[in-house]
């Protein structure tokens, strides 16, 4: 893994990220906006499934998932630019490794949401109708993982070895 990191650090893209002073701040800004979109929209879907925000029909809230995904894509792109810009500071950071593990788990959680049929099950829920337990487990896990990812991201500078 270290060898890949070293090789990445020598690429032209890496040079581009670190040698133009506007690139890193711009990526940081977009990373935060993407994070807000992601946590806001997916968080609201999770809140609906958990019953915290019971008012709307689930099929209406599902339209927000697309925008949450836009935020996720923004963060993947900016995150890759961060990583390519300075791979070694991330690869050796246990906080970053845990954050990536959480990311994989969150992706697995989303996959399970659709693969087990829970997604189609909840689509028919009307206003104020409670979701089944399976949906609540998935929603609670999602909320925990994404907030955990936010936490680990903020802690990266403090967890560097």
């Amino acid at each position, binding site marked *: 893994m270290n060898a890949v990191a070293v090789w990445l650090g020598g690429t032209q893209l890496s040079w581009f990220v670190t040698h133009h002073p506007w690139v890193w701040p711009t990526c940081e800004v977009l990373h935060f906006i993407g994070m*807000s979109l992601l946590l806001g929209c997916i968080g609201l879907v999770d809140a609906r499934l958990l019953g915290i925000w019971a008012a709307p029909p689930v099929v209406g809230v599902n*339209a927000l998932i697309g925008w949450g995904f836009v935020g996720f894509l923004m963060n993947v792109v900016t995150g890759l630019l961060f990583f390519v810009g300075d791979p070694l500071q991330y690869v050796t950071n246990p906080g970053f490794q845990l954050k990536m593990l959480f990311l994989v788990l969150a992706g697995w959680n989303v996959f399970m949401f659709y693969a087990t049929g829970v997604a189609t099950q909840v689509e028919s829920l009307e206003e104020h109708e409670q979701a089944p337990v399976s949906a609540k487990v998935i929603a609670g896990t999602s909320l925990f993982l994404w907030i955990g990812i936010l936490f680990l991201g903020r802690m990266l500078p403090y967890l560097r070895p």
Partner: protein
Amino acid sequence: MAVMKIGPGSRGEGQQLRSAGFRHESIESRIDEATRLLMTREPSPEARRAVLAAIARLQTSAAAAGFEVQRGSSRLTAISMSMAMVLLGFVAFRLFVPPATAAQAYAGEALLIQLSGSSLAFWINTTFVYPGFLFIHTLGLALVVGIGLAVDLRLLGVAARVPLAALRALIPAIWVGFWMSVLSGVVLFTADAPGKGENALFSIKLVLVASGVIVTGLIERHLFRADGGMSPSRSRTLAIISLLLWIAAIVAGRLVGYAVDGAFV
């Protein structure tokens, strides 16, 4: 209610409901449908009575369900809007009441340095306190901007099947996030007062956040008035302004760390 006529006069019932100050999107369509049914068919006396009774029940149950502005929630809005005014006042003071002499300028700066040199600030900076409150600050802003963006998107037509009344419950969550950020922000400011208090971008961020809070309060006040809703064009305008303000606030917030050398005295 007076005797109901079949035909065009049946529009009267729909009008009565609307004039009773009853605006709610999903119920609007049901009123329209009921009115249309009454206009095109001749109901039996029992059916007519049942419809009138249902309309009367709808009014009382909607009032009970709290589709009018609830006082508790608007108190939280009022407190948050006041805090926004305080933030604006702080920046306005810095902008329009500059220190008259160099001695005053040094005194102001010395105060900030003293604050960050205190043992409290030392404790914040050397323990888990700073990262912990940084996390709370970020979570708070994710709540504010995240839910704010979702509400704005809904006002601009995204996820149109979410009834506007459902957004009502989201506004207090925005205020909770706002206060999380304000209170944790005080701790973060204490830890590095000169770096923030002398920073132009920090003041800009405060102005943008305060403006966002005020616009959010306006959206809530206009959307959920008891006597009727906002015009669609005005809600779209407010949503776009809110969206731009929150994005600009994030930009300013992120750039504070890069602008430490800029003085704003």
